[in-house]
């Protein structure tokens, strides 16, 4: 049996101008993580390291806090990019911080705007442990969503999915979902070169290149009017297709 006492999971949260939503996310995360760690049936890790990557936000995220009497099994770190580089670059920075600690066995990425359900963490880690996968992807189309994704965006995401399947050969159902978990072996070969949204495709190319084992779990996405406005516009979805071509030609992965 593995020594769970010395294994932790790093939760990497890239943020850009998310101070309106980040404190609430940290609060919900902390409650969920404490619940997991106190659950005798949960034995995947013995602690969590939250890594907030501030990607050049106008307002510093250093004001975020855990509870006044926090659980010592949960630690909070903040790292700040001096300029805005993109979500892919932020994830790469977070992964490198996680790798610096030899106890980190799992790496979880989630968006900083709170649209990912923290309750899905249990099934992510459960899937990792039971399937032996190196990486587990979240699939927003496997469950209902809180608000309907606009049809035009659905069509563009579907087109992006088809192109990704053609390029990567992976049978996944969600082209661009920032909610995923991977193990240390995969983190050690992950070297993201795409700074912005195209990193999601680049990760899949790395999976293909290294023949990593992968799985998919349904996740909930809580769209709000605010996140829909802030999220990718339809033009942004077209940009995803453009970035896919860029990854295909220039990523080196």
């Amino acid at each position, binding site marked *: 049996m593995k020594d769970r006492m010395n294994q932790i999971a790093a939760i990497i949260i890239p943020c850009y101008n998310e101070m309106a939503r980040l404190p609430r996310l940290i609060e919900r995360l902390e409650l969920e993580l404490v619940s997991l760690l106190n659950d005798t049936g949960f034995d995947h890790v013995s602690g969590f390291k939250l890594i907030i990557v501030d990607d050049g936000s106008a307002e510093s995220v250093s004001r975020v806090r855990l509870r*006044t009497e926090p659980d010592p099994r949960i630690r909070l770190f903040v790292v700040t*990019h001096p300029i805005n580089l993109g979500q892919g*670059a932020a994830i790469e920075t977070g992964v490198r911080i996680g790798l610096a600690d030899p106890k980190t066995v799992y790496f979880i990425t989630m968006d900083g705007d709170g649209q990912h359900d923290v309750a899905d963490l249990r099934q992510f880690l459960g899937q990792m442990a039971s399937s032996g996968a190196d990486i587990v992807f979240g699939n927003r189309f496997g469950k209902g969503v809180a608000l309907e994704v606009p049809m035009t965006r659905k069509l563009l995401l579907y087109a992006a999915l088809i192109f990704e399947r053609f390029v990567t050969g992976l049978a996944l159902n969600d082209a661009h979902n920032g909610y995923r978990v991977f193990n240390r072996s995969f983190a050690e070969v992950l070297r993201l070169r795409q700074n912005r949204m195209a990193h999601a495709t680049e990760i899949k190319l790395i999976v293909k290149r290294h023949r990593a084992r992968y799985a998919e779990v349904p996740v909930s996405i809580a769209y709000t009017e605010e996140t829909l406005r802030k999220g990718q516009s339809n033009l942004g979805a077209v940009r995803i297709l453009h970035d896919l071509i860029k990854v295909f030609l220039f990523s080196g992965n």
Partner: protein
Amino acid sequence: MEIKPFTFVFVVLLAALLSLDAMMLGAHARKAWWTMFFLFTGAGAASLYTAPFFELAELLGVGRPVDLVLYIVTVVLIRELFLSRARTAALERQITDLARKDALTSVVEIVPESDSR
């Protein structure tokens, strides 16, 4: 030699553009400016004495001299587009590495303040 109105306007516009470039580029790019000047002047002169160019085009199996120019320019532009993208990607990687190096030296663990009551 008949000078058509379009030719006159075209030459005037080109001269204006070259003058603007001379002001914008500055002394450090003077050679580049002179190269552009001679290229455009040479092209203008060639348009007045076209016979040798038609012979060249026929020799190469291209329909007209202007088609040959179009083929060359198209290849050069497409190549420049891809090379430019590759150079930009390399520059972006350098900037990213530099910014990340700076960020990784200042990772902060947020420790909550103890209750002082």
